[in-house]
């Protein structure tokens, strides 16, 4: 499948690869330059492949309070939140952002790689509620991210929209006739994600190119989210892991009055004691950490890297890894050699700066 911006990617020299059935640019020349553009000025991503689902009906709030582990009851119109959607085992079906338009209308943006099972899951649960679940198929989604992203987009929107955007706080959004503009993203920088009809989306992309915003591919998107310590569904969590072992306990709202899918299993897990954690690792020697590498704790217990890579900002190998508790100093098996790593909170870079905090004082 191709997004509406496919020809634009090719014209810009994008190296197109297959990404879960979508032809998307891996980079437009240099993944590292694209990464730095987002950390230092502004970059943009075509994320039109992501699944947008509009949920409308008199019981939409009850519906979402049932299927999301976070609680939409705390949202006002114009607010958004991150949540996991869990199965009955308390494990993650997918992660998403829910946008509250009004009491009877919410928009969800879920992953593209999990499109079919997400749609089936959403439809399945909708049968119990007065809610209509409709996928928005034809659209452009453009993420503009970086310290200059909001200034750039403000300039291009102009008029009343510009004023709204300047005043917009993180995880808030507004709509105009053509654009749905949200202060959300997947990079650890300031920025927005814009949903627009195909024609308007293409025109907006062209304006962004003309304004000098750096087009960025999937490669930079992955290193930016990894530096920001943001989970990738399918790597760092899936239908066999719970949010409690995925650094996502903060996204669960435990409310005695509310029952949600997976709650019982999570309560049991919590009562028995959570036995693993998703942590950040920083390689002390030069080199790169890779997904799937073995993590060895000081007492011999083993864990695994769920997402590894090279951080262009820190110029070090970094990773997210799932390890059993208690935490202690650790090493990673790189081609048969145990290399010491720092064990840190999984948040390496925010707003262009190193922000990591040690979870274990001594080195591996």
């Amino acid at each position: 499948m191709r997004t509406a911006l496919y020809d634009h990617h090719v014209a810009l020299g994008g190296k197109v690869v297959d990404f879960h059935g979508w032809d998307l640019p891996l980079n437009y020349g240099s993944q590292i330059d694209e990464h730095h553009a987002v950390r230092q000025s502004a970059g943009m991503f075509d994320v039109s492949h992501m699944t947008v689902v509009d949920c409308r009906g008199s019981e939409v709030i009850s519906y979402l309070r049932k299927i999301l582990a976070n609680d939409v009851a705390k949202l006002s119109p114009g607010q958004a939140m991150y949540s996991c959607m869990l199965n009955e085992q308390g494990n993650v079906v997918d992660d998403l952002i829910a946008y509250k338009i009004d009491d009877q209308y919410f928009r969800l943006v879920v992953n593209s790689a999990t499109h079919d099972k997400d749609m089936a899951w959403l439809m399945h649960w909708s049968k119990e509620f007065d809610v209509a679940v409709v996928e928005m198929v034809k659209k452009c989604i453009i993420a503009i991210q970086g310290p200059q992203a909001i200034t750039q987009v403000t300039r291009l929107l102009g008029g009343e929209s510009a004023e709204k955007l300047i005043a917009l706080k993180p995880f808030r959004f507004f709509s105009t006739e053509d654009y749905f503009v949200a202060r959300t993203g997947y990079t650890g920088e300031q920025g927005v994600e814009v949903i627009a009809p195909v024609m308007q989306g293409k025109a907006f992309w062209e304006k962004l190119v003309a304004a000098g915003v750096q087009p960025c591919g999937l490669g930079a998107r992955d290193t930016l989210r990894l530096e920001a310590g943001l989970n990738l569904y399918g790597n760092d969590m899936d239908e066999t892991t719970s949010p409690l072992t995925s650094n996502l306990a903060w996204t669960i709202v435990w409310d005695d009055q509310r029952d949600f899918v997976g709650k019982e299993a999570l309560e049991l897990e919590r009562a028995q004691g959570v036995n693993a954690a998703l942590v950040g690792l920083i390689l002390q020697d030069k080199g790169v950490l890779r997904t799937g590498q073995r993590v060895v704790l000081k007492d011999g217990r083993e864990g695994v890297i769920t997402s590894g890579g090279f951080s262009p900002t820190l110029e070090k190998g970094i990773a997210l890894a799932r390890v059993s508790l208690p935490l202690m100093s650790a090493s990673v098996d790189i081609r048969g050699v145990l290399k010491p790593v720092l064990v840190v909170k999984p948040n390496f870079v925010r707003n262009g700066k190193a922000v990591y905090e040690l979870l274990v004082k001594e080195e591996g």
Partner: protein
Amino acid sequence: MSTVPDELKFTPSHEWVRIEDDFAIVGITDFAQTLLGELVYVELPDVGDVIAQGESCAVVESVKAASDVYCPLNGQIIEVNEELADQPELVNDDPYSNGWLFKIQMDNPDQVEELLTPEEYQKQVAEEAH
């Protein structure tokens, strides 16, 4: 289209070899570096290591993946490119010159005859590119 210099020899695993008297300089080809993408780390052998033809003796790691470098000839490592420790991107920018990996003292110069000629390597690349 990647370049294949006339004066070099090649391996099917995308190493290039420059023969100098009794030693050889080794690197990875332009085709290989293009395929790998931007390099962020190069692990080189130690000077003094004795290595057999076909043995993995270095690793090049790009933003995408790690890839072994196989020794084209039997011999002993006499020098490695220290600049790659801080500038692995030299392999991308200049694979046949500043991006060289190591120099090896040849044990058996007859092995040079087993290496691919530029024409042979060009043919292989053309096939792999499809």
